[in-house]
């Protein structure tokens, strides 16, 4: 087990290096640079030259490649071009925890509601409850999160005025309700569907039939015997969503005014803010890989037949 984890962690290194290389050259191959005018004013050539020099963009490409990598290995992800006086490290330190908290809260809601609802639908297969829940799940999956967020803001913020229309005041505030729910809806619906189909497989298994024959109550069968096995596919899919959700959703963060990392990444791409693009991409890559590893390891906990050597 320990050897397996170590191998997986070591495998991160070449993957990250590959991502670094691809992003590095892709950024520079994209037309338009960080100081090409974006507003209405021309950037004077002398000034642009000074900026290029200040941020070492006049160095040969291989040197830029090596220098940034060396810095990153020492934990220095460089300065932001757009936000003068701020570093990528500071930006990540400011915004990543917010995305992380928001994402974890959304996943807690998604799993906490999605799994029981999915199981309920499975147990009541082909009844009105089942059809109703799965209808809602299809809507949940097919509605983009920014539409959900916008509708929630207009209804609960503008018309009912129960919650502020945007902003962030921590996870335990009224402001957090809309982003958490908007972010949770899609994984919630997906988790519910997976939980349902997985539970349907399990309740047809012999051991469940035996438990029924012995006269156990339905609730006890589902919770004590079927649930654990039914959860394996759910964990896989939840892992994928978790990585997706904690790295920040650009749309939900933008619409609800949450200062998270997802929105920062997108803005930095349109500003060609190279260090921010690189720093956040590497961070997101690490998170996705680590979450995948955790998902794989959790299989062993749920199913004693799975062993990692």
């Amino acid at each position: 087990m320990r050897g397996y984890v170590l191998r997986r962690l070591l495998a991160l290194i070449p993957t990250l290096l590959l991502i670094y290389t691809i992003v590095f050259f892709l950024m520079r191959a994209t037309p338009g640079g960080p100081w090409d005018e974006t507003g209405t004013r021309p950037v004077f050539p002398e000034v642009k030259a000074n900026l290029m020099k200040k941020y070492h963009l006049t160095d040969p490409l291989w040197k830029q490649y090596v220098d940034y990598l060396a810095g990153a290995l020492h934990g220095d992800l460089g300065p932001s071009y757009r936000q003068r006086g701020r570093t990528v490290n500071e930006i990540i330190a400011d915004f990543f925890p917010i995305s992380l908290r928001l994402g974890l809260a959304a996943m807690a809601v998604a799993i906490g509601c999605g799994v029981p609802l999915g199981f309920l639908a499975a147990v009541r297969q082909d009844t009105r409850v089942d059809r109703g829940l799965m209808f809602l799940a299809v809507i949940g999956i097919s509605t983009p999160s920014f539409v959900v967020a916008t509708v929630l803001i207009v209804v609960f913020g503008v018309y009912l005025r129960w919650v502020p229309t945007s902003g962030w005041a921590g996870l335990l505030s009224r402001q957090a309700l809309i982003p958490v729910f908007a972010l949770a809806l899609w994984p919630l619906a997906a988790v519910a569907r997976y939980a349902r189909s997985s539970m349907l497989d399990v309740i047809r298994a012999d051991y469940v039939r035996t438990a029924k024959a012995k006269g156990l109550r339905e609730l006890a069968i589902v919770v004590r015997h079927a649930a654990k096995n039914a959860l394996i596919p759910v964990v896989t899919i939840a892992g994928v969503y978790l990585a997706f959700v904690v790295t920040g959703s650009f749309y939900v963060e933008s619409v609800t005014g949450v200062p998270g990392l997802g929105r920062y990444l997108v803005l930095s791409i349109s500003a060609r803010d190279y260090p921010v693009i690189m720093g956040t991409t590497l961070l997101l890559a690490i998170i996705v890989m680590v979450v995948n590893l955790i998902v794989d390891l959790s299989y062993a906990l749920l199913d004693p037949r799975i062993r990692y050597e």
Partner: protein
Amino acid sequence: MSWRSTSVGFMVVGVVVALVIPVFATPRPVSQVNLASDQTLRMVIREPTSMDPNLAGDHSIWYVDQVFEGLYKILDDGNVRWLGAKSMEISKDGLTWTFRLNPAARWSDGKPVTASDYEWSWKRAMDPKLASDVASFYVAIKGADDYISGKLKDSSQIGIKALDAYTLQVTMAEPAPYFRAVAGLTYLYPVPRHVVEKYGDKWTEAGNIVGNGVFTMQSWKHDQEMVLVRNESYWGKRPTLQKVIFRIAPAGELCGADFRAYEANETDFAMCVPTADIDRVMRHPQMSKELTAELLSASQFLVFDTGRAPWNDARVRQAFNLAIDREKVVRALSRGLFKPTKVLVPPGIQGYDPGHALQMTAADAGRLLGEAGYAGGRGFPDFKLTAPDIRGNRTLAELLQQMWKETLGVTAQIEIMEPKAFSAWRSARKNQPFDMYTRGGWWSDYEDPTNWYNIFFVDGWLNSHWQHEQFLQLVKAAAPELNKAKRIALYDQADRILERESPTIGLWYFTDYWMRKPWLKDLQHTRILGFFWLRDAVILAH
């Protein structure tokens, strides 16, 4: 290369240009009785990219303007409101500008604002090591060009000198009347040397920052909220507002966030209404009264590559110009809140005269195209309209395509590009052919014709490849002209040529859609870059 370096030397006859400008009276005070006890203004803004006046060159200048102030401010009526300076004198030859500073002016930590603060700040803004893009506003000053480019190392050679604590002398490389419009801009606001040196890059953070404006920064949680409070040690009339709460919304969704917060009564002032909501606002009995379209010194226009056929024929350009129904375009894009224009430059810029527009109608468009050899659009080469994906350009391009098809019988291809990619493409047009493009328009950085005619056509920033000898001579002569009447006459003549020749086609003037709650009074808009002047604003009891 800047426009001055290409302008011809112009001998100035001995005219004393001592500017005696009346002090602008502060707006009438609102009766104290009506004021709300809580003088807090709430609004939504975008995260400033910098609060350092020497660095802020984008939307950040709006917030810098609340915490700092410069020598003076030129208001929309042309009057000067003296702030850091009390007066300004210009020598006969137009080269030496002397600013007498206001000895009462203080930094918010109590230290006096002196001429050496200005000298140090201005040189800092030009320092190649700081690499600030606002450095371009200093290029009129002697030695600035060379210092910015690194050729001149010794900053004492730059034409900026603190003669004593309250006298600042600026020497120009050549006469530059436009500097009057520049000297009051945020890019030339002073910074407190003692604070900048103490905290380095972090001097603009809350707790460190020291300003000289009517407000001071109380807190700044990046990308969340910035709170300003009244600067109680301000030298002059202090604002009525005690506190300003800026809620910071993400750039991509700013307009929506701004408007929704306003509609939910969370804010008192909104600087934007999403296009999709304008109709609803205009029909709404209350909100329609709160909406104003504030005119900006900014226009949207089309640019031709006049260096090649068929665009080198003025009749073709005129035909394309006349075939555009601007009212229709403006209705589609702004529900009529932008102001249609047939000329390029906006009101307030010398040379502006709507009467210079082509005195023909859409009916003449087909005739002109026929005279150019393309009757009914027959034989007209394929061409492309290129634009960045911003500010409704997609809709604009489609409307133009349709209008030209109907009136002229020609079919435009449309290419919409990602904004940065468009900038790179446009810069590369310096020596490369194209057909026509439109961008995000042009905002006056300062109210002077050099900011339009000279930058566009003498510096060639538009890349329109338009080389009209007479026009170029006129605007080159006008730029350094110290006689105001003469200068206006030269630009007026140049503008006539520009509009007749149509190397560019003016489409509309931009406006800011402002929403103000009925209790918010005396909040002024400036047409230069749409500043909001919070210093005079008051909140009435409600």
